[in-house]
Structure formats: C-alpha cells, structure tokens
C-alpha cells in the first residue's frame, strides 16, 4: 500500500515537473564530484536541488531567497513547484526523507534548513547515496529583511552552493552603479538598492577588496577628483597626489595596497599609481605621449594592468606590467579600422579580459583569452557597455539599452542567460564587489 502510494506521488511529481527545462547534455556519461560532499552530477549540467520549506521564523522568506540565489548562481537547478513543496513539507514534518521520489525527479541533493534564533542549521542530503552529506550551523544575524539579515542569508546560500558544486556562490555580493549624478549600491539579487554618494556629479565607482571602501570620480571646482569613501562610517577623503585637472577611473589593486587612476591635463591622460590611502607621491605608469590612457584593471595577482589607450589613434585595450613597463596591445584590430575597443575588466581567475567593442557603431560586450587571444562576443541585443566581472569569474554585470533605456543587466557568460538587475532608467557604470566571502 505504502509502495503504491509512493509510486502515485512520484508519478504526480514527475508530471508536475514535466514543464521544467530538460537537463542539458543529459546523455553525457562522465560525472563530476562536488568538492565538499562528493555529489555526482554530469559536467555541463546543473545538479537539481530541492530546498525544503524552512522551519522557524521567516522561513518562507529564507527559502525563497535561497532558491533565488541558487537560480541566479546558474550552477544549480532548483526543483520547485507546488507539488514538490507539498511533498517536501510532508516529508519534513515526518522527518523522513524519501530519496526515491527525489531521485525520480533527477535531484542530486536535498537542502533542509531550520532556524532557531540567529542560528540556521543546514542539512544537505545526497540523493544518490541516500544519506546526509553535510550538516552545518550558520549564523543568520540582524533583524528580518534588514540589509545585514539578507546578506547573512545570501552568505548561507553561497556556502551551500559550495558544498554542493564545489564553487562558492556570488549571492552575498553587491554592485555599485551610477544613476543621474549619484552612486547607488544594490545586492546581487536586485534588492536593497540605496544611494551611497551625496549630491554632486560622480562617475566610475570602484570597490576596494575590503568590501566597504569605494573610490569614485567627483566633479569639483578645479576639475575631477578621485574620492575614497568608507561605506561603513561615511567618511570621505580626496586623493591629493595629482591635484587639479582630470582624475578619473580609479581601480584598487587586488591586495588593496594600491590605487591606479587616470590623471589628465592639457597634454593627454596617463595612468598613475598611488598608495590606497590616496596620500603620497603618485607614480606615472603609462607613457601616452599626448594620448588618453584610462580605465585600468589589475590582473588577479596584481602584477599586470589592462587599460584603454588611444596611442594608436583610436582606443584599444593594452596590457602592461604594474610598474608600467612591458606594454603590449591586447585587442586585435585591422589596419585603418575606426571601430574601437575599451573599458577592460580582468576576470578574477585571470584567464579572460572582458571589454566593450564597437560593431557598426554599437558597443557589445566581448571577452578575450589571455593565452591565445581568442575573442568571444557575449551580447548582441541593444547597446551593451562597461562590463564588470562577478567574483566567480562567470557572471558579468554591464550597462544595456536593450529595454530602450540604460539599465544594469547580469549575464552568465557560460549559458548566455541574462537578467535585469536595476529597474530605474539611466543606470550605468556598474562595479561588482570583489570578495565572495569564500573561506
């Protein structure tokens, strides 16, 4: 009788889930093991995961956030739907997980979370092995739905993603962008948007690796200044090493020790390096000879720079050692080509540089591999500019006009799946925070 009932429920669940997208490359034979709990799943596919209803205060919100984080992470396929949730609820209440049903739905793992006070107990079950694979207590701090609380839930999602796939998630990250004349920050899931700069015209925000200091350009009486702001204390100070003129496009070195930015006067714009505190003498690191050299980005080891330079007559992306020597043209172009390429961002794994490339007068996002300089076009819809890598080296945020107005979009460079992050016209110049919080 029990067996018959189980079969009926299983059949109903399979029917309910038929609408779900089929697993890509389901015919592949090879399997890959997750780093922490050894789940097996096919490479190129996303392991299916069932998130049980979360017990405890604000459980529904936590479950929804975790499912959304998994979905936006593009490494896990969330198996959901009313029938699934009803079955999960029943099993959770009986404290008895029936792995056969979840296996029939191609689930690789079941995630069960229970919250007590500020502690969330997380169990991750391996469906194939029919056993508990990981059990951890995670702190969920702050008042429900506060910024701190949401970040701690995102951090839990990222941790679970690492246990299942071996790769830390990017949910607990934030993105800076400019709208109008102000800088805003927004969580990676599109929530918690708020302004972080005062009145005044600002441009080109950048994160320090510490996750709470930002740098940006601000229009002042004597020109553009680079300003450092601590988001925790709200304290600001101006980089005074090159007073006056144009001081724009700041970028922090990966170790947070150096700040590189473009300083321009009448005879062109060059990149300068200064200590991250913004004090002391700035050292020039490009020799533009009257041309403009802007938008620096560091390699992950901090040893190299990529930047936009107009030294060949039109902007192209170049690389150099961080001391300014050993300059090399990175982006290929044909002689006489007036389309140009600019605004590079070095991927966190060091393999790729994303940049914007003009095609028939419209910018598109592209990547180039450092090893063999293979160029790959990632966007084609509307005008797409100013790419910035997520810490996982897989997702990119960029400015897109595909909806008719400028908004920030997030793109999974592997699958090509894009989602809209901001929903107010005029958002541009995104900068993704650095760390993932991975141990």
């Amino acid at each position, binding site marked *: 009788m029990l067996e018959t009932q189980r079969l009926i429920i299983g059949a109903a669940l399979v029917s309910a889930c038929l609408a779900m997208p089929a697993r890509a490359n389901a015919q592949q034979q090879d399997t890959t093991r997750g780093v922490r709990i050894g789940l097996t799943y096919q490479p190129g596919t996303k392991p299916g995961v069932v998130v049980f209803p979360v017990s405890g205060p604000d459980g529904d919100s936590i479950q929804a956030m975790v499912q959304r984080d998994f979905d936006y992470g593009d490494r896990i396929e969330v198996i959901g739907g009313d029938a699934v949730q009803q079955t999960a609820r029943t099993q959770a209440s009986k404290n008895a997980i029936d792995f056969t049903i979840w296996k029939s739905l191609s689930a690789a793992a079941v995630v069960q979370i229970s919250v007590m006070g500020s502690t969330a107990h997380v169990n991750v079950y391996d469906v194939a092995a029919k056993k508990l694979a990981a059990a951890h207590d995670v702190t969920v701090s702050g008042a429900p739905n506060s910024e701190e609380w949401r970040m701690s839930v995102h951090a839990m999602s990222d941790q679970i993603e690492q246990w299942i796939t071996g790769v830390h998630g990017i949910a607990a990250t934030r993105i800076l962008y400019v709208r109008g004349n102000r800088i805003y920050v927004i969580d990676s899931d599109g929530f918690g948007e708020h302004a972080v700069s005062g009145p005044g015209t600002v441009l080109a925000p950048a994160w320090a690796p510490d996750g709470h200091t930002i740098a940006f350009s601000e229009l002042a009486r004597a020109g553009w200044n680079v300003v450092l702001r601590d988001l925790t204390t709200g304290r600001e100070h101006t980089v005074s090493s090159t007073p006056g003129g144009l001081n724009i496009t700041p970028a922090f070195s990966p170790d947070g020790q150096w700040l590189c930015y473009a300083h321009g006067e009448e005879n062109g714009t060059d990149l300068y390096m200064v200590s991250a505190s913004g004090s002391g*003498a700035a*050292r*020039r*690191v490009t*020799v533009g*000879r009257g041309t403009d050299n802007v938008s620096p980005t560091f390699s992950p*080891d901090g*040893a190299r720079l990529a930047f936009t330079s107009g*030294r*060949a*007559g039109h902007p*192209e992306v170049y690389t150099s*050692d961080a*001391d*300014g*020597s*050993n*300059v*090399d*043209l990175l982006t*290929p*172009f044909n*002689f*006489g080509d007036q389309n140009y390429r600019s605004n590079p961002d070095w991927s966190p794994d*060091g*393999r790729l540089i994303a940049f914007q490339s003009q095609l028939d007068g419209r910018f598109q996002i592209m990547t180039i591999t*450092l*090893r*063999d*300089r293979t160029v790959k076009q990632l966007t084609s819809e509307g005008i797409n500019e100013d790419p910035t890598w997520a810490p996982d080296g897989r997702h990119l945020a960029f400015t897109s006009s595909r909806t008719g107005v400028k908004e920030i979009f997030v793109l999974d460079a592997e699958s090509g799946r894009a989602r809209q992050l901001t929903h107010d016209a005029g958002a541009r110049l995104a900068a993704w925070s650095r760390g993932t919080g991975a141990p």
Partner: protein
Amino acid sequence: MKTLLRCLAPVALAATGACFATSNDVKLLQGQVDSLRIASVRADSVHAAQLNQVIATLGLVRDSLGTVSGHVEKLQGDVRGDLHDVNEQLLQIQQLTGQSQNRLQELRASIEQRNQDAGESAPPTGTQPAKGATAAPSTASPAPGAPGSNEPGPNQLYQLGMEQLQRGSPSTAVQAFQKLLQDYSTADIAPEAQFYLGEAYRAQGNAAAADTAYSLVIQKYPKSPHAPTALYKRALYLEQQGNATAARALLNQLISSYPQSDEAALARDHLRDLK
C-alpha cells in the same frame, strides 16, 4: 638835462632810421612769403599723396602677408595632421606587426610540433629503405626541433613557457625557458626567452633570480626590445633593496641608451622622485 636831450636826439634818429622801408619793399616781401606758402602747400599735398600711396601699398602688403600667413598656417596644420596620421599609422603598423609576430611565433611552434609528430610516426630511419636506394647508416640523430626529432624545438619551448606563465605556473615556465636558453642559446627567440625567464622568476616571487635574468637580457641582447624594460625592472629592484645610488645609475643608463623608449620616459619621472 636839456643839453642831454639835445645830445641823444641825433643818436635816436640814427638808430630808428634803419627800420623804415618803402612800400615796394613790403609788397615784394609779401609776394615772396605768398610764393613760399604756395610752394609749401603744394609740397605738403604731394607728400600726403605719397604717404597715402605708401599706406595703401602697406595695406596691400599686409593683406598679402595675412593671406600668405593663413596659407602657411594651413599648410603647417595639414603637415602636422599628416604627420600625426603617419605616426598613428606607423604605431598601428608596429602594433599589428607585434601581433603578427605573436601569430608567427605560434605558427613556428606548431610547425615544430608537426615535425616532431612526423618524426614520431615515421618508421625509424633505415628500417625500410626506398626501393633501389642504398640505406645509409644512421649515425647522427636529427637536430632537436627538426623533422624526426623527439626533442621540442625552441619555438615550442617558448610557447610552452609563455602558456605556463600565463596560466599561473611560473615554475614550469622557468624550466621551459631555461631549457630553451640552454639548448638553443643562438635561437632568434632567445632574447625573448631570457626576458620572460625573468618574468617567470618574478611571478615565482624570486626577485633576485629575476634580477639576474634581466641583467643577462641587457648584457647579452642589448638590441632586444625588452632591454629597456629589463633595465627599468633592475632599477626598481635595486631601489626596493635600498640601493638608490645604483638604481639612479641604471635609470640614467636607460635614458641615455634607450632615450625613445617608454621606459626612458618612466625613468625620467622616477629620477625626479628618487631620493
């Protein structure tokens, strides 16, 4: 008193007598004055006409000069623009040449790889002599990198070193570059390998070994495009070691030996800040 007056009267008469002239004399004098005035006015009008002519001529000259100056400025602008375009095109050509060099380098490496593959797949020399041909005894093994050789050629080693360096495996890169420099010290690619050996050591965190490798670039391949870079890196290393005097000497050497290089421009800046 009367006597005195009587004495002075003839003297006064004699003195004033010379001042009296006839009316003819006066008319004559007036005529002469009028003539002089007319002559003066005539001369003035001639001068005025001449001056006007000179002024008009000067105006014409000024206009001509302005036109010529405009032409010259336009010409200068055109020449400057043309020179700028030529410079840009030269830069583009240089940079595209650099890219072509990279592609050629990859091509050379793949040719060496094919030669090596062909050598591996071909039957051992002498085992199947061609019909009618005399099988020559194989005493010497083929040169490394040549068809039939199992040893990687210099371009393969360079390519391998660069790939390992770029993927974050500097230790393997060091081995590849060292083997290249040891086995093919006269190869065209040797200066590049010597420089990137330094870069690989630097990536390993072995600054002293990197400095030695850079110094060999300067010493053995002073005409290499990497020589000024190597000099600059040596100067920075010495500065980090607290040897500002030696650093300054190297920066000055860089400026005098490679004045047109980017590194020379950086060195000039750096010398100003070096204490």
